[in-house]
């Protein structure tokens, strides 16, 4: 279809959004992503029955956590669309990119908080 969507988007493929854990969303932000969206199947259409519903809860949890640490919760979002909806994916990507652009760059990007492996 040769659809256009923002070039800055990096796609991480998973067999089901049920595999998305809270830490995956946090790591993406901690490593500098300006926003993260989870693109799951339509509710009620999950091949594994409830994977997208689980992802939805985890996204909600991360949004709450971001609010607690003073970051915009909307930097993380969940969308539901079928695998046949290429144009919708491109539209969501543009929508998300535009939303994140309004917030400005991820405030954590390039900051000095470090981590070393302890044990």
């Amino acid at each position, binding site marked *: 279809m040769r659809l256009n969507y923002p070039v800055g988007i990096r796609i991480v493929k998973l067999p089901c959004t049920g595999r998305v*854990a*809270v*830490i995956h969303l*946090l*790591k993406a*932000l*901690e490593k500098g992503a300006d926003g993260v969206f989870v693109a799951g199947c339509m509710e009620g259409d999950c091949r594994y029955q409830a994977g997208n519903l689980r992802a939805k809860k985890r996204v909600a949890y991360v949004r709450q*956590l971001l609010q*607690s*640490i*003073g*970051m915009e919760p909307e930097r993380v979002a969940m969308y539901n669309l079928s695998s046949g909806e290429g144009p919708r994916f491109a539209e969501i990507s543009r929508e998300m990119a535009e939303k994140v652009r309004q917030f400005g760059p991820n*405030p*954590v990007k390039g*900051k*000095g*908080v*470090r*981590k*070393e*492996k*302890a*044990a």
Partner: protein
Amino acid sequence: MIMAKPKPIEEIINEIKGFDKILVAGCNGCVAVCEAGGLKEVEILASALRMYFGNQHKNMQIDEVSLTRQCDKEYLAEIKDRIGSYDAVVSIACGAGVQFMTEMYNTKRIYPGVNTCFIGVTEEKGVWTERCQACGECILARTGGICPIARCSKRILNGPCGGSSNGKCEIDKDVPCGWQLIYERLKELGELKRFEEPVSPKDWATSRDGGPRKLVKEDSQI
């Protein structure tokens, strides 16, 4: 097992904001099962703290470790070589783990990252309920395997009380009346006669009324 729930992150931030190097220490025992203090929760808490302090332009190092248990010295000893380099530790083990770490590394500040709640069971994924108050003198044999100390809001030994209505406790319509559960269980077992013999007052000296408790098993001692 022992159940806990994460403290609000704002409370943890407030405790550690004055330090430069923090270790977030999890426990892979009970608190990992109730998804409050295991390896995954260490990663989440540490990541959130790093983002918060990064956002505050504070140059801070926040590391992660998850021990097999924090209530045993041999596992706590795994961090003895490196704990010296940290200003403070946020332990997300239960209260026992936090205290044992404090005892072992008494020059360090150890802050709790969870609120320890109760001894309970996993009802279903994500739902835990209380079953035992560790009173020190188990009476389950007389109550059909349902504990009136843990399951009755008043901990009464001869229930139910007048607050029991339609099998629920007066404190909350979603809380089953412990004594109603005991009645139904004893009825099923054909042991309703037990209700004809009042239970004598309990000796609470084996519970918290007797002060901090200690167990010694001489044949286990080296």
